[in-house]
C-alpha cells in the first residue's frame, strides 16, 4: 500500500471519529429539546395537567420576575419574612445572617441592629423576593451537609482504629438508616422550629448526612484490599502513615460518591422540613404558595421553585464531579466519572 493510501485510511478514521462526536452532542441537545417539548405539551389546554403545569416560559418568567423584589409577594404575603429588621433589611448580608440564625438570637443582641420588630407594612421591597429565601436555604443545607460529612467520615474512619466504634455505630446507623429519614423531621420542627429555625433544616440534614457518610466511609475502608495494606506494612508503614497514605486517599472515590448521594437527597429533605413550618427559606415559599390553589400564579410558582432546586442539584453535582474527578484522577472510575 502506498503512502497516499495510508493517509487516506487515517483521514477516513478521523472523519468517522468527528461524525460520532457531533452525533453524540446532537442526541444530547435533542433530548433536552424533547424534555421542553414534553413539558410544553403537558401545559396545553388539552392536557389533564393544564391547571397544574405552566408552560416553561411562564415558570421562568415568574421566577425571574420575583427573584429580587416582588410586588406580588408583597401584596399577597405580608408575612413572607417577618423576622427582618430595617437595619438588616438595608444590608443584604445582614438579612441573610439574621434569617439564618433566627431572630430570637438577633433580638437578644447577638447580631448588631435594632432589635425592635418593624411594622409589616414598612418592610422594604427587597425582603419579599425569592432570592433571599433561596440563599438562606442553600446555606443551611450546605452547612448541614458539610457538618454531617465531617462527622460521618470521622466516625467511619475512626472505626478503623477502634473497632468498637463500628460495633456500636453500625446497628444504630442501620436502625435509623432503614427508616425513611423524613419521619425524623417533625422532631426537629418541634424542638427547634420556633426558636432556632436554622437547627431544623441544618439539624435534619446533618443527621441524615452523618448516617450516610458513616456508612459510605466504612464501606470504602472495608473495600480497600488487604493486599495493599499488607504491602504497605512490609514496606515499613506505621499505623499512622498507613492511615494517612493508604486509607485516606484510597477511600476517596467511594466517599466522594457517597457524598454525591447524600447531597442530592439533602436538597429535597432540607426544603421539605422548611415546608413544615420555618418562616424563612425556599421551603417556606413552597409552603405559602401551596395553599393558594385558586391563584393563577400558584402552579407557576411551585413548578418554578421545584425546578430551581432540580437545576441547583444538577449544577452542584456537576461541580462535585469536576472536583472528584481531580481528586481521583489516579483511578479508572474517577476518570470516567460522569453526571
Amino acid at each position, binding site marked *: 500500500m502506498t503512502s497516499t493510501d495510508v493517509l487516506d485510511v487515517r483521514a477516513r478514521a478521523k472523519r468517522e471519529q468527528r461524525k460520532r462526536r457531533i452525533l453524540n452532542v446532537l442526541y444530547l441537545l435533542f433530548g433536552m429539546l424533547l424534555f421542553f417539548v414534553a413539558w410544553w405539551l403537558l401545559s396545553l389546554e388539552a392536557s389533564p395537567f393544564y391547571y397544574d403545569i405552566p408552560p416553561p416560559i411562564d415558570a421562568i418568567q415568574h421566577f425571574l420576575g420575583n427573584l429580587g423584589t416582588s410586588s406580588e409577594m408583597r401584596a399577597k404575603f405580608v408575612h413572607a419574612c417577618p423576622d427582618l429588621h430595617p437595619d438588616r433589611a438595608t444590608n443584604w448580608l445582614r438579612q441573610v445572617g439574621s434569617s439564618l440564625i433566627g431572630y430570637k438570637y438577633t433580638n437578644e443582641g447577638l447580631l448588631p441592629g435594632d432589635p425592635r420588630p418593624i411594622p409589616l407594612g414598612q418592610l422594604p421591597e427587597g425582603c419579599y423576593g425569592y432570592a433571599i429565601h433561596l440563599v438562606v436555604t442553600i446555606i443551611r443545607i450546605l452547612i448541614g451537609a458539610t457538618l454531617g460529612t465531617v462527622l460521618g467520615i470521622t466516625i467511619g474512619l475512626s472505626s478503623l482504629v477502634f473497632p468498637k466504634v463500628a460495633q456500636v455505630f453500625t446497628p444504630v446507623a442501620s436502625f435509623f438508616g432503614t427508616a425513611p429519614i423524613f419521619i425524623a423531621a*417533625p422532631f426537629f420542627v418541634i424542638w427547634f422550629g420556633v426558636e432556632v429555625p436554622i437547627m431544623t433544616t441544618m439539624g435534619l440534614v446533618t443527621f441524615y448526612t452523618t448516617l450516610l457518610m458513616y456508612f459510605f466511609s466504612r464501606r470504602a475502608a472495608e473495600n480497600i484490599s488487604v493486599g495493599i495494606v499488607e504491602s504497605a506494612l512490609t514496606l515499613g508503614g506505621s499505623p499512622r502513615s498507613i492511615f494517612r497514605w493508604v486509607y485516606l486517599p484510597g477511600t476517596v472515590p467511594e466517599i466522594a460518591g457517597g457524598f454525591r448521594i447524600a447531597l442530592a437527597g439533602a436538597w429535597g429533605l432540607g426544603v421539605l422540613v422548611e415546608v413544615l413550618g420555618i418562616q424563612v427559606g425556599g421551603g417556606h415559599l413552597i409552603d405559602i404558595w401551596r395553599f393558594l390553589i385558586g391563584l393563577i400564579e400558584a402552579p407557576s410558582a411551585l413548578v418554578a421553585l*421545584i425546578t430551581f432546586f432540580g437545576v441547583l442539584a444538577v449544577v452542584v453535582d456537576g461541580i462535585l464531579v469536576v472536583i472528584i474527578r481531580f481528586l481521583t484522577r489516579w483511578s479508572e472510575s474517577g476518570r470516567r466519572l460522569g453526571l
Partner: protein
Amino acid sequence: MRRVQSPTVFWIGWLVWFFASAYVLTFSSGLVGRWRFEEGLLYLNWSFFVGWALLFWAYPFALRLADAFRILKAVGRIILSLPRRLKDAVKNNPTFFITWLVLLTGWQLVSLVAPEGTLEHPLVPGFEYVLFNLDGGLYRLSGNWDLVGGVNLPGVSLRFGELAPFPSLEGAETRTWTAVWLALGFHSFMTLSRLVVGLSLGLVAGLITGLAIPYWSALRQISWAPFNFLRMIPLLAAIPWMQFALGAGLRATTIFIGFGVWVTLVVATMNSVSNVPDRFIESARTLGASRLYTYLRVIVPGAMPELRTALLLSGGLGWSLTIAGEFLGFSTGLGFMAAAAVQETNTARLMIVAIVVAFYSLLTFYLLNKMFNRMVSWMPQRTGTTDISKVAGAAGAASAVRVQTQE
C-alpha cells in the same frame, strides 16, 4: 375435596379467599345476624372479625389438612423459640444490646433533665410517658381513630363505629386502648397499601422502560438528559405540588410514588445495562446469537446484580414519598398520624409513630433483599457488613442511584 397440587396456586388461592371470605361474610349478615349490613353499609363489629378469622383458617384445613397443621406448628415453634433466639443473639453480639441499652437509658436520663418547654407535652418524653401515661404518647393515638370515617370498597362501604367509640364524637373520656390498636392497624394498612401499589407500579414500569430504552442506542442517548434531570429534581420538595395537581386520593399517591420510583429505576436500569461487561455480549455474538437474543439472554440477566442497589433505594424513596405525602396532605396513614402528633406538639405520640414506621421499613428492606437474592441465586454469595440495605431508607431520599451502583 381434590388436593390442590401447585403451591403457588394454593397461596394465591388463600390470598383471594382472604378477600372473598370477607364478602361472603358481609352478604351473609342476614343469616348470621351478628353484624349489620344495610343499604351497602357494613357496620363492622368483633364477631365479624372472629368469623373472618375462622373462614381464613378454614381454607388450608379444607384444602391441605396436613399443610395447615404444618403451618400452625411452624408458627408455634417460631414463637416458642423466641426466648432461646434472643438469648443466643445476646450471647453472640452483646455490643448490639449494650449499645441500645445505653441509648435508651441515655434518652430516659435526658428526659429527666431536659427543659420542660412551654408546650402541653414534654419536649423529651420519658418512656413511662410514651407508653403508659394516659395523657402521653401511645394512649393518645386513640385520637387517630377519630378520623377513621370508613372505607369504600366495591359493593360495600365499611363503617367502624361499633369496634371502638370515636373520642371526638363521644368525648375525650371515651379514649380506649382498643381504639389505639385499631388506629395503628388501620393507618398502617392505608400506608402499606399506598406503598405497595405505588412501588409495584413504579418497579414494573421502571424495569420495562429501563430495559427497553437501551436496546436502541440512539434512544438511550436522547433520553439521557431528560431522565437524569428528572432524577435530580428533589421529589420530596415536589410533594406540595403533587397534592396541588393530583389531589389527595390513593390515585394521587400511587401516581406520584410510581413516578418517582419509575424515574429512579429507569436511570438505574439503563446504567446497569450499559455496565454489563462487553465480553459477555461479544461472546454471545460470536456464538451466533442475534441482537435480540443477546439482549434478552445476556444483557438483561447480566444487568440484574447491579440493580440490587437501585431496587433497595427505590424502596427507600417509596417510603419517604409515602410518609411525607401523608404528612403534608392526607387524613389517613402513618404519615398523617405523625402530622396529628405534631399538631398537638406531642413528641411522645410522634415517637410511637416513628418506631412503627422504622419497623415496617426494616421489614420492607428485608423482603426486598430476600426477593432479590432469589432472583440472582447464581451470583457468588456476598460478604461484608456494610450493605446498602442498611441505609436504604435514608439514601432512598436521594434517588441518586447513578452515583454508587458498584457494590
